[in-house]
């Protein structure tokens, strides 16, 4: 059973663990290690980083042996659209106010679904905006401008 490395589930997981562990260990090298009696801020992260690299190596080797592939395809499209909608919402909140940000969030995220009907999405956007306003602004009293135009900051 031969699986391409890029489809090999445990190989990729191991690689990810090794990367996170190694980066954590590397960054923690600049923090004082202290000693066992007086643990410095670098003590715990360095130990964790090393342990994570260890687990990563075990996972990676097992992946090479078993060749188990990733189950189901990668959902790159919904992942990209959902992430982009969140990022857009965050950025817009600081520039154009709550209402336009919400509309953009709802409409753009709905695009990640399998079915996209303009009529439905319009209703959804209005309903969700009203829901958000009634919970967060009128209910919890959060001080957001509903509409704003601030690009100078």
């Amino acid at each position, binding site marked *: 059973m031969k699986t391409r490395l890029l489809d090999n589930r445990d190989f990729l997981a191991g690689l990810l663990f090794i990367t996170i562990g190694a980066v954590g260990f590397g960054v923690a090298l600049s923090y004082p290690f202290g000693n066992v009696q007086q*643990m410095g801020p670098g003590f715990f*992260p360095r130990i*964790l980083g090393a342990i994570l690299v260890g687990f990563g190596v*075990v*996972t990676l080797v097992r992946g090479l042996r078993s060749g188990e592939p990733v189950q189901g395809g990668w*959902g790159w499209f919904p*992942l990209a659209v959902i992430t982009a909608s969140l990022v857009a919402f*965050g950025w817009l909140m600081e520039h154009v106010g709550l209402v336009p940000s919400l509309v953009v969030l709802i409409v753009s995220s*709905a695009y990640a*679904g399998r079915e996209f009907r303009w009529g439905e999405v319009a209703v959804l956007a209005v309903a969700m905006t009203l829901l958000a306003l009634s919970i967060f602004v009128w209910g919890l009293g959060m001080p957001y401008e509903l509409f704003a135009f601030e690009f100078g900051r």
Partner: protein
Amino acid sequence: MDVLSNLALGFGVALTLKNLTYCFVGVFLGTLIGVLPGIGPLVTIAMLLPITFGLDPVSSLIMLAGIFYGAQYGGSTTAILVNMPGEVSSAVTAIDGYQMARQGRAGPALATAAIASFVAGIISTLLVAFFGPLVGKWALEFGAAEYFSLMLMGLVFSAVLAHGDLVKSLAMVVVGLMLGIVGTDVTSGLPRFSFGVVELLDGVGFTVVAVGLFAVAEIVQNLARTEKVEVFTKDVKNLMPTWADIKAITMPTLRGTALGSFFGALPGITASVAAFSAYMLEKKLAKDPSRFGKGAIEGVAAPEAANNAAAQTHFIPTLTLGIPASAVMALMLGALTMQGIQPGPQVMTSRPELFWGLVASMFVGNVLLLLLNLPLVGLWARLTQVPYRWLFPAILMFAAVGNFSLNNSAMDVYLCAAVGVLGYVFAKLDCQPAPLILGYVLGPMLEENLRRALLMSEGSFAVFVTRPISLAFLLVTALILLAMIVPTLRRGRERALEEGDAG
């Protein structure tokens, strides 16, 4: 009686109009959202967390607990009607519950779930009231070494019992621990892993991690999936179970409650393990085990009872030791910490109204749940038909606005998106998110207790094995790990978990 006077205090807190309202709102919202297909208790709590931060600690905990068991019950409804459990623990209920629904017995199945949950909820809450203080008193003797060993045990348990590969689950614990390090070090004041981002000086926000991992990543997973499901809502008519049904579910409910209460009190053991063991027990005890999987009513009652009992007794280690027993409890603990309360045995003596108010509210909440569910089951059944394409933008709305509202900063929304991407990649690589969130919540405490223990022992690791309680925790941890590594047992575990997943 000590417990009685404390319970009286608790009911005094829980029965104020304000807390009664929050309990009701929590149970109602929890059921409402939990019943929506594909949304489990974790997503529900994660997305509603920011709403509770404005309340005082007692009210917010009461409301969160209400959301939790509401969502848990809502999830069972969805499991029975749509065979689409929002969480692993209700997957067991789905095995026979869905079959009952297909045979036109959706009503009795739903009623059984409601009754079993109610009985289990009341009994196990009594257990929390009696055993919580005992554990708390015992834990007051704990020093840093005991806490470190106990947390280690909890983390290893959570990894052992997570579905999937042990090494990867342990690695996820470590990833969570490292995520917990981000921010300013309490002892030295040095910012760690903040990469010059001002917002990271306070660490990666708790809601950011919870929402990213359990709402955003989950949505992407659901959108990338392509399956059609059959819904049985037209059949929900005669709700009441027959007298024969009641007789059939009495013992399974009590046995499920006993199993669930026991498992729930052990840190790291999830409700799904309790539900699955209760199901297996009933199958063993049944005169005709072949009925199971084909709509056996005991197969609905026992796991539902176990599930709910474990959900309540999870509060024992969470509130008395500060060690969350599951991912949901980690969310509760995180919410407490955000309210400025350091969880641990001292909470019970310093804030008795918090512990006893919550315990009393669990009685109230279970009654509310039953009152709410029997008449409203038709409405809940109709809600299971809401298409997912309307739901996920709504969840995202809560995720986005909720995270923005924490610090009024877009950075938390960006971080949440990043955690979501990471969570999705992990999920695709079959790495479980639950051990990560436990590691993330316990990380700072684990480091602090390790530091304190080693400081007091003058750098000698012997302190962890010379103190008997600490040694006991470490021995149990080692035994569990050994048991997992012995290959024969391991194969048995994989088979057991696969059967559990089959629903």
